C-alpha cells in the first residue's frame, strides 16, 4: 500500500508536477461504478468535444505524453498529458494499471471562475482554453484545478541554449508561437486544449492519433452516432472526481 503511494509519487515527481499545491491522494480518488449514463450529462450545447479513454486498452507507454510534448512544444515541468501508474495486489496476484490524464475540459470548470482577467474560458465547443495574450500568469487557476492539469511556463528549456526544435514555431490555438523570453507562452499558464489547432483542421488531438493501443476516442459527443456514445452505449463510464460536480468531458472506461 505504502509502496504504491511512493511509486506513484515518484511518477509524478518525474513529471515535475509537485509543488502545485495539489493533494496527491485526491487525484486518484476516482468515482468508480459511476452510474450516470451519457444521457444525464448536463451539457445542452450543440457541440461538446470529449475524449473517451479505455484503460483496459492503455498499456502505459506514454506515446501520448511525447506526442503532446512535440505537438505543443511544452518545456520541462509543463505536461498537458501524464500517465499515472498504479500497482495493486500482492505477488503473484498483482497488476499494473495506467491512467492517462489530459485536461478534463469540465462542463463546470473550477479554473475558469477564479481567473481575474477572463483569460481562460469554456468555449462553445466545450474546450476550456487559455488566451495567452490575456493571461497574466497569476496561477490562481493552477490551485483551482482539482486534476493538476495546469502548469506554469517558467521559460525553462530542455537545453541551454535552447535547442533548434525548442526555438521552432509552434501552433497552439491556431496561432504562431516562438518561445522567446518575455513573450507568450512563456510566463503563461498552460494546459491541454485537445489540440484545438488540429481539430480546426479536422484532425484528432495528437495523443489520440499516436496511441499505439488505440485506447483513446475523440468526438463531439452531442453529434448523433459519434464514436464515443456508440462505443460506451452499453458500458459504464466514469469520470475523475465526479463528486466535485465538475462534469469532466474526459470519460474513462475500464479499471484503474
Amino acid at each position, binding site marked *: 500500500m505504502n*509502496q504504491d503511494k*511512493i*511509486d506513484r509519487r515518484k511518477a509524478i*515527481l*518525474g*513529471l*515535475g508536477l509537485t509543488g502545485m499545491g495539489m493533494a496527491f491522494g485526491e487525484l486518484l480518488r476516482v468515482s468508480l461504478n459511476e452510474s450516470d449514463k451519457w444521457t444525464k450529462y448536463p451539457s445542452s450545447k450543440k457541440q461538446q468535444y470529449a475524449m473517451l479513454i*479505455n484503460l*483496459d*486498452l492503455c*498499456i*502505459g*507507454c*506514454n*506515446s501520448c*505524453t*511525447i*506526442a503532446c*510534448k*512535440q*505537438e505543443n512544444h511544452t518545456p*520541462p*515541468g509543463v505536461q498537458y498529458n501524464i500517465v499515472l501508474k498504479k*500497482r495493486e*495486489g*500482492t*505477488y*503473484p496476484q*498483482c*497488476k*499494473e494499471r495506467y491512467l492517462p490524464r489530459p485536461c478534463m475540459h469540465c462542463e463546470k470548470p473550477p479554473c475558469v471562475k477564479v481567473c481575474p482577467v477572463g483569460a481562460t474560458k469554456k468555449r462553445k465547443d466545450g474546450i476550456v482554453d487559455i488566451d495567452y495574450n490575456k493571461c497574466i500568469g497569476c496561477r490562481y487557476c493552477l490551485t483551482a484545478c482539482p486534476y493538476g492539469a495546469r502548469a506554469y511556463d*517558467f521559460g*525553462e528549456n*530542455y*537545453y*541551454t*541554449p535552447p*535547442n*533548434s*526544435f525548442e526555438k*521552432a*514555431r*509552434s*501552433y497552439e490555438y*491556431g*496561432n*504562431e508561437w516562438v518561445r522567446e523570453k518575455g513573450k507568450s507562452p512563456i510566463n503563461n499558464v498552460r494546459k491541454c486544449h485537445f489540440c484545438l*489547432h*488540429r481539430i*480546426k*483542421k*479536422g*484532425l484528432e488531438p495528437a495523443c489520440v*492519433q*499516436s*496511441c*499505439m*493501443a*488505440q*485506447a483513446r476516442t475523440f468526438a463531439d459527443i452531442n453529434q448523433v452516432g459519434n464514436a464515443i456514445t456508440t462505443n460506451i452505449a452499453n458500458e459504464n463510464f466514469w469520470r475523475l472526481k465526479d463528486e466535485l460536480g465538475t462534469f469532466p468531458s474526459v470519460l474513462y472506461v475500464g479499471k484503474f
Partner: protein
Amino acid sequence: MTDNHKACPHLSRRDFLKSSAFLGSTSFLATTLAGAERSYANAVKSEDGTYPLIQPENILYSACLQCTVACSIKVKLIDGVAVKIDGNPYSTMTLAKNIPYATKPHDAVTIDGKLCPKGQAGIQHAYDPYRLRRVLKRKGPRGSNEWEVIPFDQAITEVVEGGKLFSHIGEDTDIPGLKDIIILKDATVAKAMKDDVDKIRKKEMTVAEFKEKHKNNLHYLIDPNHPDKGPKNNQFLYQVGRIHNGRKEFTQRWVKDSMGSVNWIEKTTLCGQTSNKSWTFSTMGYTSGKWGGGGHKSPRPDHWNNEFLLVFGTIIFEAAYGPVQQSEPITEGINSGRLKIAVVDPRMTKVASKAWKWLPVKPGTDGAFALAMIRWMLENDRYDKKYLANATKAAANADGELGYSNATYLVKIVDGDRAEKHLRASEIGIGTEEQFVVMQNGQPVAVTPEDKVDAIEGELFADTEIEGIKVKSPLQIIKEEAFSKTLEQWSEVTGIEVKDIIEVTKEFTSYGRKAGVEFYRGPIKHTNGWYNAHALIILNFLVGNPDWKGGTSKPGGGWNYMGANAGQPYDFKKLHPNKVNNFGIPITREGWNYEESTLFEGYPAKRPWYPFSGNVAQETWASANDEYPYGIKAALISSHTPMYSIPGGQAQLKTLLDPKKVPLLISCDIIVGDTSQYSDYIFPDITYLERWATPGAGHHDRVKNSQIRQPVIEPLTETVEVFGEKMPASLEALMMAIAEKLNSSGFGKDAFGQGMDLVRMEDYYLKNVANVTFDKGLNMPEDVQDDEMKLFRESRRHLTPAIFDEEKWKKALKPEEWKKVVYALNRGGRFESHEETYDGETIKKRLGGMSRLYLEEVATTRHAVSGKYFYGYPIYQTVLDSMGKEVNDKREFKLITFKEVWGTQSRTISNYWSQVSIMPENGVLMNSIDAQKLGIKNGDMVQIQSASNPEGIHLLDLGKSRPVIGKAKVVEGIRPGVVGISTHFGHWGYGSNDIVVDGAIIKGEAKRGAGVHPNPLFRLDDNLRGTTLSEPIGGSASFYDTEVTIIPL
C-alpha cells in the same frame, strides 16, 4: 523546476551555461545548427499561417532507428528543423490499415500512423547538443578523455599512414597505419589463395601443398603455416552495432571487398541471434541432399487473429520486435474477448499486466516449462498428429495442410543413447543417400521431403532396430526428454505449480491452430538458450499452427534492394570490379567448424568456435587479447558500444586500452560515447535522420514493406571533401576517404564499372532504392507527375548540396529510373496493402515447408572447448560454462535485465522528453518479500556484487572505477529471488562526463549518468579469460544467468 535538478546535484546551471558558451565558440559540438537560419529564410508560409505541419512540403518520410525495428516514419519540419515524428500512413508497420500506395503525398498529409514514445523522441537523439561535429584525436593516454580537434583530412592521413602518431604527447610507439595492414590488394592473388584455403578446409589440399603453390605470396598471410587464418588484412577489425540493410552492404563492400578483411562483425549475439538462428534451422528445407535454404529467422504469431497467445519472456508492449505493430491487435483482442494471453516471465511486464495469467518462471527454465507442456500434451493426446505425421509435401497436400515435418524421420542412436544423424535410405538398402526413412505399418519406407507424388505418413513414435542400426523417431526422442521428469519435477525446476502448467497447456491446446507461442530474447539469453528456443518453436509445430490465420507465419519481408532478381537494375554482386576476395577464419571463429581448421589440436580448443552462428560480438576483444586465432592491429567501431553492451564489457577494457593488443583504435560515433571515449580517434557520424538505408518489414508485418531511410534533416557534422565531392563527415565519408587514400577498389571513379562512380553516398544508396523500385511484384512505383516532382524538391529545400543535390542524385541512376525512384522516395519506401495479408483461412506469405523437430547437423557437432556433442532436439540443461561445468555461485538472486518502452540500450539517454522525464533513473527491481528479508526499503541504495565482480565495482579506465550501486525499487511484480535492472541508464560517457577538448573542459550533464548499469556484474566464463558465459550454438551472450548478492547500504 526543470526535470534535471533532482538527478543533477553536482552541476549548477551556471556551469552548464559556461560550457555551452564554450561549445558554441569552438563549434566542435553541434550546439548551433548548420543551415537553420538559411532554411528559415526559404520557408514556405502556410496558407493561413496556422498549421504548416500538414503542408506536404514540410513532410519527409523515412525509417526510424530508435530501436532496431525500423518503423516507417513521417517527419514534420518547420523551417528545416524536425519538430514532430509520426508513423508513415503508407506502411502497415505504423498504420495497420495502411492507405493505398498510389495516394499522392499531398493527400496523405492529414493521415498519420502511430509511433512509440522513443521513436517520437528521435528528434532529441539527432539534435543532441553533445553531437560530435569534427574529428577528435586523443591528447592523453587512451581513456583520459583529453582530446584535440584535428582536420578530417589530417585524421585520414594519420590512420592510413600510421607512424609515431602520438609522439607529441610522449608516446614513442610506431603505430601501423591501415596501409601496413591492408597489404593484399591484388584481386587475382586473393582469389587464388581463397580457393585453395577452401580446399584445405575440405581436406583436399595440405598446408605444404598450399605453401609450395603460393610461395611467392606467403608474405601476405598472417601465418603461412596456417593459411586459413587468411591475409594480414584480417588484422583489421570492423565492429558495428545496429546497422540496417543498405548501410550494412555499403560497409561490407568496404571492409570485406575493398579492405579484404573477413572481420565485419555486427552485434547480433547481444540481441536475438539465438532466436533467429533457431527459427532458421527449424524451418529449413532439404534439397539436393543438404539442409539449407527456406529457413526463416522470425516467424511470429498472427496477433490479429490469435485466440491464445503464450508469451515467453518477450516484452511485447515495451521492447521486443515492435510495440507499434503488436500493441493494437493484442489490446483489441483482449478487449473484444477474442484473445487470451498467458505470460511466462520472471518479471511482471506490461503485457503480463493485461494477461489472463502471469507465470513467474525461474529464469532459464523456459525449456523445462515447454517440456512439461509437451509431456502433458502427449499424455493427454492434445497435439496435431496429422500435421506431424506428414512426411512429404504430397502427404501434406493430400490433407490440405500447408507444411509437413521431420517428426517421423528416423534418427540413429549411437554410443548407447546419443541421437545422431537421420538414417538414410541407402544405409538399409531401400533408397538413396539423399532419402530419409520413416516407419509405416512397422516397415521402413524411404522418404524424399519435397516429394509431390508419394503421400507418406510416418509413425510418430518409433523405437526400433533396422539391420542392426538402433533408431528412434524425433518425436519419440522428444517424448523421452519430456518424460524424463514428472510434472511435479518439472514444476520444481520451473517454480510454476503443476496446476498452472496444466491449466495453461489445456488452454494452449484448446484453440486449434489459433494458438501460438511467442518468444524473443528472454528465453534465449541463457547458456541453454538454444534448447529453450527449439522447445518453444516445437510447441508451435505440435499444434500445427504454421501459416494459418491466427497461427504462426513469417514476416512479409521486403523487395530485394541488392538487385539479385531478374529485371532489377543494379546487381551489386556484379558492380565491384577488382573486388578483393576476403578469406580465412574470422576472429570470432564463426561459420567454421574447429575440426575443419588447421588450428585443430584436440579438445579443449583455446576458445569456442561458432559454426552455426555469425556476428559473435562478445568474442572480438577477448579473441584479440588471446590472439586466437590471431591478433589485430587496427579496429574501427561504429554504432556500437561494446563496453556498455557486451556483458561484462569492463573485462575487455584492458584490451581496448592496451596499444599492444589494439595498436590503432578508431571510432566513428555521433558523440563521445561510453566506448568511443577510449579510442585514439573519433570520427563524427550522422544519425538516422541524416542518412540512408533500406530496412525491410518488421517481424510482425505480414505484407511486404521496403522502407527508405533518407536524409530528412541537414547533417550536423562538418562538411568534408572526398573524391572531390563535398559531403557530411560520416561513416560513409570516412570509409570512402580511406579507400581514396589507399587507392583500393570499389570506391571512387568507375567504382561500379565503366562510367559508374561511387563518389557520393547516394551513388550507392539510390541504387538500393532503384532495386526496390523495380523489383517485380505489387505496387511498383510509377513515374511521378510534375506536382510530385515539385514536391520532391520543395520538401528538401532545407538540405544543402553536400547532402541533397538533385542533379547529382539523378546521376546515380539511369535517366529512365528517376521519376519512379522519386515516387518511392516521396512515400518513404514501397509498401503492400494490408489487404494482402490473408488468403482465406491462411496467411499469404508462408513458411510453407518443413517443420524440423530434429536438427541432425547440430547433433553431429561438438562444442570446441568441452568437446561434447550438442543435441539436435530440445533438452533441459542447467547453466553451463564452456567446459560443460555447471555454474552455481550460490548467491541469493538471479539477475535479469529488461528495457522500458522509452529506452533503447545505449542511445536514448539524450531523449529528455521521454527517458529522462518519464523515468529520470532506473533502479534495482526486487520483490517485497526479498526486500523485507534484507531490511531494504523502497528507495534505499544497494550495492550489487557477483561471482565475476565480487567487489561490485565498475572499471571506467585503468585508474578509475565506481561502485555498482542502485536504488532499490521494491515491487510485487517480480519473482522472489530475482532482481531486475533495465539497461538504458548508468552512462559514464555519452555526455554524462566532463571531457577536455583543446585544453578546455566540456561539462557533462549528470542526469545522463543517473541510475545503474548492470553490465559489470555479468557472469564470466571461468575458462575464457574475461568473456561472458555464452550459448554455444546460436552464439548468444548470456544476459540472465548471473547470480548476485544485494548489499543494503
